């Protein structure tokens, strides 16, 4: 993978002393789709604004093709941004908006006009050139903003929650559209969102952020299946997070029983967190011969369309279970989990919070 952007130990401390970024490092490759994912206030937008040049980092480096671009103002960076509320210029029409960059550079009008048409075609807005911005729908404005950025042929496009203002159906459509545009244009996309589903659908790699730090960087599959700590596990998808004891390699104890698992290297009798995805928790009738497994009682049952969602009480804990097979409330069940479905994680600073949150579900 050819590196295009390399961020090294970037720190941003605001005037009021708030640390927005606490030393972030990430390498981004050519034609990669990287998503910065995290709850609001995690620093993802600050990181994006640093790359765009709208925020001055307190320390650290942003290397663009090997050169530190921190001293450059935004208008001297070959990087373009699609803003959250699009920031289209209301007094210009669609074509004038798109032509803004080339016009500033004093490029040939005819060439620009042709290029504008090409861009509008790319984003699916052919023939919209003369339209007023105010007459466009949210999705159309979104596309104009993308065309306006892409016409400058940036190597990197920054997108700050560009889909947040759209309704669910349009958002799904635009997710596919953005992915297509990114593939066709061959541009690196850095995409900011707080929507984990969006991140999983679109990205080549995801950086999960919290409190100014990257918690985990990896492919969507990595992040979903092997979260490195309780925070990531909790943030990505629905999950059961429990505290457990790693008895020895490949054997972990939780809910009062010992489970074989595939993880090793945590030492003996180590305190760990485990994450169980709701669809991986299997319920068996109480009469099933399987032995040495936890037993529980179904407390709630909800039909969710493709599956049933159940809450099963096991002693002090409550497990969230997704299954295509409904079990009536009050049914006693046995619980089984396959070794490869148990994800063991080191305890981290966020585990107490996450565990508390999950424990409250039991009340």
């Amino acid at each position: 993978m050819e590196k295009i952007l390399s961020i090294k130990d970037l720190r941003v401390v605001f005037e009021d002393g708030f640390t927005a970024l606490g030393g972030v490092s990430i390498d981004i490759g050519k034609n990669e789709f990287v998503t910065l994912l995290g709850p609001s206030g995690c620093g993802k937008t600050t990181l994006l604004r640093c790359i765009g040049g709208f925020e001055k980092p307190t320390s650290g480096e942003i290397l663009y093709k090997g050169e530190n671009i921190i001293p450059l103002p935004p208008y001297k960076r070959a990087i373009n941004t699609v803003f959250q509320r699009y920031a289209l210029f209301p007094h210009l029409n669609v074509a004038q908006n798109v032509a803004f960059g080339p016009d500033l550079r004093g490029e040939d009008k005819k060439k620009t006009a042709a290029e504008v048409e090409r861009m509008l075609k790319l984003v699916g807005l052919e023939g919209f050139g003369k339209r007023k911005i105010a007459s466009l729908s949210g999705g159309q404005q979104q596309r104009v903003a993308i065309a306006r950025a892409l016409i400058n042929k940036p190597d990197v496009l920054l997108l700050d929650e560009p889909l947040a203002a759209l309704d669910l159906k349009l958002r799904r459509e635009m997710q596919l559209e953005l992915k297509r545009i990114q593939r066709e244009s061959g541009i690196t996309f850095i995409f900011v969102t707080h929507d984990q589903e969006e991140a999983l659908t679109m990205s080549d790699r995801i950086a999960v952020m919290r409190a100014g730090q990257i918690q985990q960087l990896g492919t969507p599959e990595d992040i979903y299946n092997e979260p490195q700590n309780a925070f990531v596990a909790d943030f990505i998808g629905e999950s059961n997070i429990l505290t457990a004891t790693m008895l020895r390699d490949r054997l972990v104890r939780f809910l009062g029983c010992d489970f074989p698992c595939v993880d090793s290297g945590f030492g003996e009798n180590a305190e760990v967190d485990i994450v169980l995805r709701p669809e991986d928790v299997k319920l068996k009738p109480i009469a099933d011969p399987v032995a040495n497994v936890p037993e529980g009682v179904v407390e709630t049952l909800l039909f969710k369309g493709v599956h049933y969602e159940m809450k099963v009480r096991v002693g002090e804990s409550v497990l969230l279970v997704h299954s295509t097979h409904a079990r009536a409330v009050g049914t006693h069940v046995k619980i089984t989990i396959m070794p490869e479905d148990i994800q063991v994680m080191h305890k981290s600073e966020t585990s107490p919070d996450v565990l508390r949150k999950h424990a409250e579900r039991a009340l």
Partner: protein
Amino acid sequence: MAKKLRKAYVGLIMAFLYAPIVMLILYSFNNSKSRAKWGGFTLKWYRELFADEAIMSALGTTLSIGILAAVISTALGTVGAIALFQMKRRPRQAMLSVVNLPMLNSEVVTGVSLMLLFAMARIQLGYVTLLLSHVAFCVPYVVLSVMPKLRQLDPNLAEAAQDLGATPLQGFFRVILPDIMPGVFSGFIMALTMSIDDFVVSFFTTGSGVSNLSITIYTMAKRGISPKINALSTIIFVCVFVLLIGINLSDLRKDPRSQDKVDKVRIPY
């Protein structure tokens, strides 16, 4: 019945507001020495008005001060509004209260305070002090009318321009200014009318024979009634009338969608 009564009431108030003006206009064409009696139609008061050097020079002063004050205060007020807008909340609120003071204060106080300022600075009262004073009381109105437009701005607009390669100054002239233009323009119109209409502040801050229309009318009215003033009123009223109707008509034409909301007549107040 009740509806007719209500309409009649509004009609009565309109009559109260317009009757004196209609009288003025009528009697500006009155060919009679004893002013209040009707002595036939004439245009001689208009001829005399245009021949009156004092009035004509006052008109010139009013217009030149009005335009200069409006241009300067619009520039200063727009820059000021942006500066205020970019401040942090606390200092911005503090500054806003200071800037609003001339609008809240009565005109007499503003006039007196500026006069004392010029006295302290040992500036001879005259055209320059008149202009400075007009700029002083117009700027807050410009700030007032530009501020809401800034609040409506997309917060990322300036950044978007720079992101696309515009320097901050280019971004301002190509993106921000066109967008806040309605506010800037109505600030300009407000400053212009405030300046042209002003009497009290001008009264305290002019000198050395420099006199605007308001001051000239004041001196003449104190001496007694003159049909020349009637003629002047008529001309001013017609100008204002045409101007306001024009502004509203051009608004209607500009925005085709306003057909369904013809009610939104603009009053640049």
